[in-house]
């Protein structure tokens, strides 16, 4: 069956911060770009980021991007690529100034400069100078301010935004690269092939594989799912960040900025327990560590509630002035979802799935990488990945707070620059065969034609339950092995599930089915890699293998859809500075 084709210089899939930043770079240079977004761009989940964006501006005290790089590497439990974090931290100040010039309404200091707050894992002088204030903030709505600013700039640059278009699958080119994508106009149901010299995946996270998550309904890992089905690998999928402060029972995020401003966690005895686990950084230790500490408190019966299932985040001592000017959004969320006013009462919180450190492996230009049969890295022609769906890897085994907003704009920009340069050099439009275009529609056709079968809803609920129970903050080989078996059975069932509603106009049941295919790929990769990595590092913490083992596991691991894995070395060669030494984290 033949479908309409449209050709572009670049097609960007995802209208969040990363996608819009890349689009701005290219549209501003007069390139023919299309941004596909399954929601109107300002509804993308960047909008929910709260605390801020890290950059060593030095507005509060002396700062140095090398210190930022050091913290990022230590936070990653030595698993971030040093060339990538060097690029990110070095370009951070320029990237933030650009956002400011675009109009982002950062909070300000008396001298008119951008306000910066303390955040987890941020230190001065290579960990020796105490806590750093490096996180540039627009009150506690930094992501909202950033996403709207970027969208506004895209209006100014007259970018082509395909709002409410859903990307189904990547189309392979004759030379083995990527030639574009099959997408559906959600309003009409029409299927179109978008052919592009560069296809940039910017689809964000996939936190919806878990039952309890800070992520939006739309965070379903569409980019990584598409990459896997195109025969490309994902990497480090066992590394999922659990944010220490999601509102108990709801999952809504409460920013680390609360602790950055001076808030802290309490157990049922009213003890500030982080002082015990982390005498130096206390509540501002890395997220993986704080989450594990909270989980230990709850496991040992010092949590609150009849089931000891949450702890408290106290901030009333900060006073009305600070809360209303620096944390107004938090106050609103706490009142709405937890029924408490943080001016008086602490907020019930619990570690909640928040961020996918893994994703599509890329270099720091955003070019997607695969591993060939000889185990060598190979750049995938025509494909880029940026933001949470990518694994550059700047976060390694654990991301520092406020490095994700930085990641999306730095690498959104970098990919835009790189694609722009390559277009100037003269990039040919990749050609796909009719078979390749048809192949990318097989999955869609399967959903459209299957009439009898299980519902998506049931399988999704079971998948999320397995992930929550067997692949949470603490993991154990004994439960992960059966967990993986359960997921494999669910994947098999999903192949035979059916869609009842086959209508064309805004058929969300169809999109949720397509999304579940992606979620399942991600859940399975996570389970396989979590079983495979028999050590504890960063966010991956196993009772049965409690120690970090650099001799065996200081490496990235790529995984293909069939479960095949390939090791990739962690980059220890920054371009300008001396390599950072691998060492154990101190608390």
């Amino acid at each position, binding site marked *: 069956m033949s479908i309409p084709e449209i050709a572009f210089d670049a097609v960007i899939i995802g209208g969040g911060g990363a996608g819009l930043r890349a689009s701005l770079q290219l549209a501003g240079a007069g390139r023919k770009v299309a941004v596909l977004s399954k*929601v*109107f761009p*300002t*509804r*993308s*989940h960047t*909008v*929910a980021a709260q605390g801020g964006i890290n950059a060593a*501006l030095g507005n509060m005290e002396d700062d140095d991007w090398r210190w930022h790089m050091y913290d990022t590497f230590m936070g990653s439990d030595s698993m971030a690529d040093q060339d990538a974090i060097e690029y990110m931290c070095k370009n951070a100040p320029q990237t*933030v*100034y650009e956002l*400011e*010039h*675009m*109009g982002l*309404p*950062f*909070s*300000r*200091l*008396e*001298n*008119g*400069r*951008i306000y910066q707050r303390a955040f987890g894992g941020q230190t001065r002088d290579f960990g020796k100078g105490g806590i750093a204030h490096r996180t540039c903030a*627009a009150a506690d*709505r930094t992501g*909202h*301010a950033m996403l*709207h600013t970027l969208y*506004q*700039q895209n*209006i*100014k640059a007259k970018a082509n935004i395909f709002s409410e278009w859903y990307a189904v699958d990547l189309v392979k080119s004759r030379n083995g690269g990527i030639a574009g994508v099959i997408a559906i106009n959600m*309003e009409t149901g029409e299927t179109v092939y978008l052919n592009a010299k560069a296809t940039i995946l910017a689809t964000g996270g996939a936190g919806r594989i878990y039952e309890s998550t800070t992520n*939006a*309904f*739309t965070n379903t890992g569409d980019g990584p799912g598409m990459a896997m089905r195109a025969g490309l690998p994902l990497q480090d999928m066992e590394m999922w960040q659990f944010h220490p402060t999601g509102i108990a029972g*709801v999952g*809504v*995020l409460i920013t680390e900025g609360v602790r950055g401003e001076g808030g802290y966690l309490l157990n049922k005895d009213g003890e500030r327990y982080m002082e015990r686990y982390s005498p130096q950084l206390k509540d501002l230790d890395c997220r993986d560590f704080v989450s594990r500490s909270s989980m230990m408190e709850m496991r040992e019966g010092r949590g609150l509630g009849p089931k000891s299932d949450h702890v408290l985040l106290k901030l009333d001592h900060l006073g009305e002035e600070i809360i209303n000017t620096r944390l107004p*959004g938090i106050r*609103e*969320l706490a009142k*709405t*979802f937890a029924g408490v006013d943080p001016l008086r009462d602490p907020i019930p919180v619990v570690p909640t799935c928040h961020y996918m450190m893994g994703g599509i492996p890329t270099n720091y230009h955003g070019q997607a990488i695969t591993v060939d049969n000889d185990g060598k890295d190979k750049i995938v022609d025509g494909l880029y990945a940026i933001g949470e769906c990518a694994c550059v890897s700047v976060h390694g085994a654990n991301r520092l707070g406020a490095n994700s907003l930085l990641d999306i704009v730095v690498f959104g920009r970098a990919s835009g620059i790189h694609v722009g340069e390559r277009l100037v050099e003269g990039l040919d439009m990749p050609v796909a065969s009719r078979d390749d275009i048809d192949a990318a529609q097989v999955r869609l056709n399967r959903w459209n034609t299957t009439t009898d079968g299980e*519902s998506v*809803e049931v399988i999704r609920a079971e998948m999320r339950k397995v992930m929550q129970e067997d692949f949470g903050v603490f993991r154990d080989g004994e439960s992960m092995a059966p967990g993986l078996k359960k997921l494999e059975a669910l994947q098999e069932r999903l192949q035979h599930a059916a869609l*009842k*509603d086959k*209508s*064309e*106009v*805004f*058929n*969300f*049941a169809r999109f949720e089915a397509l999304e579940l295919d992606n979620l399942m790929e991600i859940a399975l990769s996570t389970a396989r890699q979590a079983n495979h990595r028999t050590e504890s590092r960063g966010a991956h913490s196993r009772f049965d293998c409690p120690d970090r083992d650099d001799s065996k596991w200081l490496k990235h691991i790529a995984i293909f859809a069939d479960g095949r894995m390939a090791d990739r070395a962690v980059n220890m060669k920054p371009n300008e500075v001396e390599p950072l030494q691998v060492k154990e984290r101190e608390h």
Partner: protein
Amino acid sequence: MTEAQARKLKVSVYRYNPDKDNKPYMQSYDVDTQLVNGQMLLDVLHVIRVDDPTLGFRQSCREGVCGSDGMNINGKNGLACVTKIVDLPNKITIRPLPGLPVVRDLIVDMSQFYRQYEKAEPYLQNDQPAPAKERLQSPEERAKLDGLYECILCACCSTSCPSFWWNPDKFLGPAALLQAERFLIDSRDNATEERLTALDDAYKVFRCRSIMNCVDVCPKGLNPTKAIAAIREKLIQEGT
């Protein structure tokens, strides 16, 4: 939800699927709050969707910050994800946002709303070369943006505004005017004069009759009427 609080809701929802319906109709669903996993109206809609996956509505962040799930709830516009079930009566009527064309069920075509937003030129304009670092702005100047920049473009305000219903193509509507004021008042923007000139026709600003439905419904607690008054004041100062 405990059993003592268990309620039987009667939810009447506006349905229209252009693939098969000639005209819209209201469909009624019975929902037992014990089956609802959550405290918000959006969670009720999820229960309905388990049995009837054909019901279409937009959603994303489920915490009132993305602005996807604006709808008309018992006659008043709001976001389903931050509308608490306890604050609603047992009989709930849900319709799409008024004044915009319905595409399917609770999904409206928002292009007119977005076009008006774009007409407000919602981006910083400054013809001076940017400094190497940030443009300076005092905390007092920055504070003027509070109450303006937080808009989530959910369209609850504009679609509750009679002036917008009558002239959706000419009156900019409260949401767009809030953004117009956000850039007029930003100390870093120096296109004030051009902005004011562009706003001064018989419709764009002046169709606001201070009905204040926008203020009443805004889920973020913003005050577009106040912003419109501020624009008007600037126009008067400019004009005299």
